[in-house]
């Protein structure tokens, strides 16, 4: 099967500053793709080039075989949700959702039906006559999502759509976005700097670092087999292990170290607890192992009190869980 969204040798320079350095990827129809990376890594620039807001310095962008590279944004038939909602303040919710349909020349009665369908989909039926300022941020962003998908775009672009929201809304809305995306089977590109967000909703993640792709793969692959030191450090927590015992560039995830031996553990380390962080379901211990700080995540237990600062403990780990970090 030919790729649906294809990006080829994409380069973008602003003056002498090259922010996207020859990026290639190809994804299938219906996939939920996240572009993940720290600010300034070029992920937003790639999204804006797909949208048509930035012109690539070189390279090509294709959707379903059609070259979009030189089309204007309003000719691309894409949908986009912005970080700041960007609802039109002068229009009601219904008119916001119908905006693209009206521009495309859909008759009024069909528009009305489509708006109703969209409002049901986002769980806000009967909100047609409201104005954006009368709604909460989460509701506004759902309307923005409805506005983006109402004209049945070929591709849905999400530019950090959750970043302006409170933590609780962020989690519930991301699950909602994913459910709607699955329902409609719409190919989606999601830009975020939040690795947890990317891991929880993506089919595939593109980890970006300084204008290049460091790794592309499923959340499971990226977390368990990080290709570079940057990916390993950026996605999830990581402990660098003492070089004397394990050799150079060895690391392990905090949840793979346990306080009691497991059937698969074959190595032990001894250290002093320097800090105890109680996070609710998880207790995070900071242990000083001969000068190397190591974080351990253990599950909270109702019956046993967590270890105290200053305690000396033995850590158990399995050599097969140790990651060797490349460049």
């Amino acid at each position: 099967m030919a790729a649906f969204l294809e990006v080829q040798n994409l380069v973008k320079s602003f003056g002498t500053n090259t922010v996207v350095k020859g990026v290639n990827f190809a994804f299938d129809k219906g996939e939920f793709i996240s572009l993940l990376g720290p600010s300034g890594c070029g992920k937003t620039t790639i999204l804006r080039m797909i949208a048509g807001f930035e012109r690539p310095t070189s390279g090509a962008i294709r959707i379903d075989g059609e070259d979009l590279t030189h089309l204007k944004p309003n000719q691309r038939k894409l949908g986009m949700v912005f970080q700041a909602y960007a609802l039109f303040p002068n229009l009601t919710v219904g008119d916001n959702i119908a905006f693209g349909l009206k521009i495309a020349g859909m008759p009024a009665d069909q528009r009305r039906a489509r708006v109703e369908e969209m409002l049901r989909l986002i769980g806000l039926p009967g909100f047609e006559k409201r104005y954006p300022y009368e709604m909460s941020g989460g509701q506004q962003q759902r309307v923005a999502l409805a506005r983006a998908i109402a004209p049945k775009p070929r591709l849905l672009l999400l530019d950090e759509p959750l970043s302006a929201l409170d933590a609780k809304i962020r989690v519930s809305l991301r699950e909602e976005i994913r459910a709607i995306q699955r329902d409609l089977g719409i190919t989606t590109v999601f830009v975020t700097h939040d690795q947890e967000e990317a891991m929880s909703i993506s089919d595939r993640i593109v980890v970006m670092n300084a204008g290049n792709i460091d790794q592309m793969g499923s959340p499971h692959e990226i977390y368990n087999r990080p290709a570079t030191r940057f990916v390993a450090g950026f996605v999830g927590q990581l402990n660098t292990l003492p070089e004397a015992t394990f050799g150079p560039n060895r690391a392990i995830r905090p949840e793979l170290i346990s306080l009691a031996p497991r059937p698969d553990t074959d190595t032990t380390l001894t250290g002093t607890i320097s800090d105890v962080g109680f996070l609710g379901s998880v207790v995070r211990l900071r242990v000083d192992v001969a000068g190397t700080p190591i974080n351990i995540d253990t599950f909270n237990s109702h019956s046993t009190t967590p270890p105290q600062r200053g305690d000396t403990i033995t850590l158990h780990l399995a050599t097969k869980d140790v990651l060797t970090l490349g460049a």
Partner: protein
Amino acid sequence: MKSDKFWAWLVFILGSAYFVVPLAATFEFSLRMRRGEYSFDAYASVFSDPYFASSFTYSVVVGLFTIIVGIFVVVPAVYFVRLRMPWLKPIMEFITLLPLVIPALVLVYGYIRLYGSSSFIPFTGSVLGTDILLTCAYVTLALPYMYRAVDNGMRTIDIGTLTEAAQIAGANQLQIIAQIILPNILVAILSGAFLTFAIVIGEFTIASLLNRPAFGPYLVGIGTNRAYEPAALAIISFIITWGAMGMINVLGRFAPRTSARTD
């Protein structure tokens, strides 16, 4: 606390008196046309003068055209400078301040030179041409106010993201300005429009030197020939100007409300 308030009130009262006393005196004088008692005779005399109605109507019509032309010039200019050429902004600011620096007299002499009946573009050769020239001159005079009003209006909305949101939905540049940008800065545009109107209604120099029957020259003419009517006219123009300013305040309440919320 108490003495703080005392001084604040004193300054306020002195400041108010500075503005109110001459006005009150003018008003009082305008009522004294009939000997020995107060009356509105001066106002009746003004309103019954056919030149009052005709010159006022003329200025209102010129004012409306000035507003329309001003909107067509200023709104797209501010929009594109803010969106695509922000480096032009200081130059824009400078240009829009020029009408405050260059006296209207200089402006109109320049116009007469450039567009006089013996020039290549003889605007002043016909009545319509002169009216067009007058309107253009007023657009220039109102530019500092119109530009600032529109610029402030655009500052309160995120025109960059709104433009992108409309673009990706398929809208072209004209649709974006007409359907998204204009309605969202309408209140700002109207406040610029009322300022423009207030300027045009009272303007004397340009209208007089272009020899057009505007309200400003009529006011001056009455002022040199009559006793009580000028005072009445002054009060009438104050009421018109205040009305325009009041409208700006009333409209301010309908400004688009920000919808940035995190919940």
